[in-house]
């Protein structure tokens, strides 16, 4: 595949996207240390920002994304509003889902982040329906579904790949292989090193890429998205990356080899890209600092907004179950 060089503004965009995710989640890390600030578990994309930024930046507005429990990167890079996202993570009334999603089920339909499921492996069948609707309406647009290497073991993923392969749906599978499913190493939950090897069994192209190199991910996404858009059918990208902060904030990684963490820390996608942009002269340290600064301020403002928001009124717990609630 010929990689045409990426325009400077796009490269700056890619960096900006990653740092915004990082700063946003750093606020969550801080909050999760104070008890009672955040309901439920806190699951972060820290270390995987290049996958979200690289994939989502290659999409068009009409494209749909479906994500999972590790969703912050996908949603922010897709354009979700930081304030209402942070408010939702705190389960506040001003949250993007009125405090009914919490951190695990954030969905932002207004930016085509259509559905989120924290049931591992559930994203693909949901995305199947979205991609089918796009094909059915001939409206153009593709659907991208993010799932983990652990999720690849769920039967639902197999059923979806087979059906997408038969119907030639515009569905891009993005497997973030971060070496872990909970406390289970990849080899404990997956029979093969590369999940991309399964694509052929569903008559679709599959590629494994370095998920910590945002430009590699971006190029691969552009290529595969074009393939899906052209009507040829589904495709699979496996992005090899690493989950830097454990499964969630309550996970202190007692089972993780510190040496392995160090290796991946050195491969931090943001640090790598910062160096690259500097050495390529796309940005100087001042502009970089300004971007980082702005991201930091923005994230802090989101927390302030969320803090200022109340929890939803108790009785609203009973609404939004049905469009047309049963009479009785």
């Amino acid at each position: 595949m010929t990689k045409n060089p990426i325009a400077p503004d796009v490269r700056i965009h890619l960096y900006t996207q990653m740092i915004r995710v990082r700063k946003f989640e750093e606020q969550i890390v801080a909050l999760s240390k104070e008890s009672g600030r955040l309901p439920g578990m806190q699951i972060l994309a820290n270390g995987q920002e290049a996958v979200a930024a690289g994939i989502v930046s290659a999409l068009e507005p009409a494209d749909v994304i479906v994500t999972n429990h590790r969703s912050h990167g996908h949603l922010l890079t897709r354009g979700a509003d930081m304030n209402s996202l942070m408010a939702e993570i705190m389960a506040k009334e001003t949250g993007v889902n009125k405090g009914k999603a919490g951190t695990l089920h954030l969905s932002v339909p207004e930016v085509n982040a259509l559905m989120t499921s924290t049931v591992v492996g559930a994203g693909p069948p949901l995305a199947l329906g979205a991609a089918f609707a796009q094909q059915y309406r001939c409206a153009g647009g593709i659907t991208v579904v993010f799932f983990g290497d652990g999720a690849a073991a769920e039967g639902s993923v197999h059923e979806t790949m087979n059906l997408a392969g038969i119907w030639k749906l515009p569905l891009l599978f993005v497997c973030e292989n971060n070496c872990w499913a909970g406390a289970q190493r990849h080899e404990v939950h997956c029979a093969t090193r590369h999940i991309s090897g399964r694509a052929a069994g569903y008559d679709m192209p599959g590629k494994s890429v370095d998920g910590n190199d945002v430009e590699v991910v971006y190029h691969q996404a552009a290529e595969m998205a074009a393939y899906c858009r052209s009507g040829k059918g589904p495709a699979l990208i496996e992005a090899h990356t690493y989950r830097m902060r454990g499964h969630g904030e309550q996970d202190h990684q007692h089972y993780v080899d510190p040496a392995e963490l160090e290796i991946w820390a050195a491969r931090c996608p943001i640090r790598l890209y910062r160096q690259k942009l500097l050495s390529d002269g796309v940005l100087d340290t001042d502009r970089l600092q300004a971007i980082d600064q702005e991201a930091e301020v923005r994230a802090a403002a989101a927390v302030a907004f969320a803090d200022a928001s109340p929890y939803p009124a108790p009785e609203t717990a009973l609404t939004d179950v049905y469009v047309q609630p049963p009479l009785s």
Partner: protein
Amino acid sequence: MIQKTFGQALNEALTIAMEIDEAVFIAGEGVGVSIHKDPNMTTFGLLDKFGPGRVKDTPVSEAAIAGLAVGASCMGLRPVVEIMFFPFMTLASDMLINHAGKLRYMSGGKSSFPLTVRVKAGVGFGAGSQHSHNLESWIAHCPGLKIVWPATPEDAKGLMLSAIFDPDPVIVVEDMMLYRMPGSVPAGDVRTPLGKARVAASGTDCTVVSYGAALHTTLKAAAVLNEQGISCEVIDLRSLVPLDKACILDSVRRTGRLVVVHEAVRFCGFGAELAAMVADEAFAALKGPIKRVGAPKIPVPVAPTHEKIFKPAPEDVVRAVREAMGKEGHSSGPSATN
């Protein structure tokens, strides 16, 4: 009104829905090309009429079929998907229970899921418990879903149309024992509202609530009881969720007695909810014990001699009503076992 079988009525409902709304499509295992070439089958002839773009045969992948419905409905389509037999609903249950029923709520009301799931139910075709296992109480227990169970050709058409155009996920149970049942059906887009029960026979001594094929067992029993001087008010539930509580409570407040009849296992079956509701909200009116007629807690058997034990018969309903009336020694039968 035109004479049609139950299956033809369902078929007409799908045809009308697809004619009036491009957003309606159907999918499932054999909904297009079927091993049966039978006009009494719900999807008969739809592939020829509407083509492979809107009538989608699928692989044997129940989770994906349900996911297809959830995802496509979230995009504004009106999927009508089939889960072939009720026991296979287990394979679709994550998509239906954890997604179709919950995603709207968790979106804060931003998303909606106007999907319909058709599922075949029923006891008495000898295939055994992996093809036959009525699980309506599972669906009824879970938030965000609706479930209807027509007992007549007219309601088969009317409830199917209402389900397809309802803005929420609706499970439509097709009772296999009824496909060939004839009846008069109104022409055109005539819908049976969800959540409205039907008084199939009015009476004064005992309220008997049922649905699906069991309703006809109940009506047979009511006729027998009539000759014995016991007047039953038979209610055809039609819709389990939403439930027409008012209709049931009003009737029990008049008769003072309740018997519930269904073909599902009695223990933790839907009848338990009806009995519990009445034992709370109409307690003051009750003149006798609430009886439930249902299957014993065994898998649906195969042998004809065993199926008789499993499936409620008119005699069972007659006995239950007489017990509710205090006219017979109390016995809760094999179905008491849990």
